[in-house]
C-alpha cells in the first residue's frame, strides 16, 4: 500500500527559453514545499481528501500560480475564480464558480460538499455561503498581482484569451522585441516616439 500525492501548477507554453533561471528555481522550490507539506497529512494518517485540499490551498496561496492570489484577470480587470473537489470513496463532491472574495476557493468547495445537498454554488450565493461557514473573505483587491495585470494588458493588445502560463511567453516575446535608441537605451515598442 502506497500513500501518494500528485500536484500540478498549470500547463502551457512553458519552456526554458521563456523562464528565467531564477523563476524556474522559485517554481521548483514551491512545488517541493507544497508536496512536502501535503504528504505529511498522508504520513500522519490523514485522508486523501484532506491532503488534496491542503495541497490546493497552498497552491492558491502562492502567487506563482493561477489560482487564489495570483489569479489571472477577466477582460474587465476583475478576478473570477473556480474550484472543485471530489471524494472518490463516496462520490461526494463540491464546487464554487465565479467567486471574487473567497481567499481560498477550494475551502469553499469542500464546504459545499460537506454542508449542503448541492454540488456547485456560483457567484454571490457561493460567497454568502462561504461567509456563513466562517471561511475567510477578502477584498477583491487581495488577488491583484502586477505580473498578471501586465499579462492582461498584453492579451488585450493582441485581442487574445490565453492560458495562465502562456502569458509569460507573451510578455517575454515583447521583451525580445525591444529596440534601442541612439544612446543605446531600450525603447519599448509600445512607446509613441517622434
Amino acid at each position, binding site marked *: 500500500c502506497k500513500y501518494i500525492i500528485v*500536484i500540478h501548477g498549470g500547463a502551457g507554453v512553458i519552456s526554458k527559453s521563456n523562464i528565467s533561471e531564477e523563476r524556474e528555481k522559485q517554481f521548483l522550490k514551491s512545488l517541493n514545499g507544497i508536496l512536502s507539506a501535503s504528504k505529511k497529512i498522508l504520513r500522519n494518517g490523514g*485522508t486523501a481528501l484532506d491532503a488534496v485540499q491542503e495541497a490546493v490551498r497552498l497552491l492558491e496561496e502562492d502567487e506563482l500560480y493561477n489560482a487564489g492570489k495570483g489569479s489571472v484577470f477577466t477582460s474587465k480587470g476583475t478576478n473570477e475564480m473556480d474550484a472543485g473537489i471530489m471524494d472518490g470513496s463516496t462520490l461526494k463532491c463540491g464546487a464554487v464558480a465565479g467567486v471574487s472574495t473567497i481567499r481560498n476557493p477550494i475551502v469553499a468547495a469542500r464546504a459545499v460538499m460537506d454542508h449542503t445537498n448541492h454540488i456547485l454554488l456560483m457567484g454571490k450565493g457561493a460567497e454568502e455561503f462561504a461567509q456563513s461557514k466562517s471561511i475567510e473573505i477578502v477584498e477583491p483587491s487581495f488577488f491583484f498581482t502586477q505580473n498578471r495585470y501586465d499579462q492582461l494588458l498584453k492579451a488585450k493588445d493582441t485581442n487574445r484569451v490565453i492560458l495562465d502560463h502562456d502569458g509569460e511567453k507573451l510578455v517575454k516575446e515583447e521583451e525580445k522585441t525591444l529596440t534601442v535608441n541612439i544612446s543605446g537605451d531600450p525603447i519599448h515598442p509600445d512607446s509613441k516616439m517622434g
Partner: protein
Amino acid sequence: TVGAVAIDKYGNLAAATSTGGMTNKMVGRVGDTPIIGAGVYANKMVAVSSTGTGEAFIRTLAAYDISALMEYGGLTLEEASKKVVMEKLIEQGKGDGGVITVDANGNIAMPFNSEGMYRGYAIVNNNEENENNDTIVVAIYKNE
C-alpha cells in the same frame, strides 16, 4: 490552474482543482475546473485533476473519460490518461493542457500536450518512520 490527486492509507482516492481561469476571459465565463467529470473527478478506481483549455475539457468530459476508458475499455491508467490528453483533447476538444492522475493501485500518470506543465508527486514510504526516505519528484518541462 492548480490541482492535486491523492491516495491515502485506507486506499481512498480524492481530487481537487482550483483556478483563476484564462487571461482576458469574458466576465461570467466558467471553465472546466468546477465541472465534476470535466476538470476534476474521483471514484474508487482513479482520481483526476486537469489543467488547460477549459472548454476542451468540458467538451470531452476529460476527467471522467479517463475513468470510463479504464472501467469499460480495460485501459491502464497510463494508456487512458495519454489517450485523452494526447488524442481526444486535441482532436475532439480542440484544446491543450494536461492531467495528473493516480489509481487505486498507486500508479501515477501526468501527461500533457503543451510545452510544459508544473508538476510533481510525493510517495510516502510507509515502512519508514523517517520521512526523509519519502520520495519527492518535481518537473516542469517535457522529457523530465
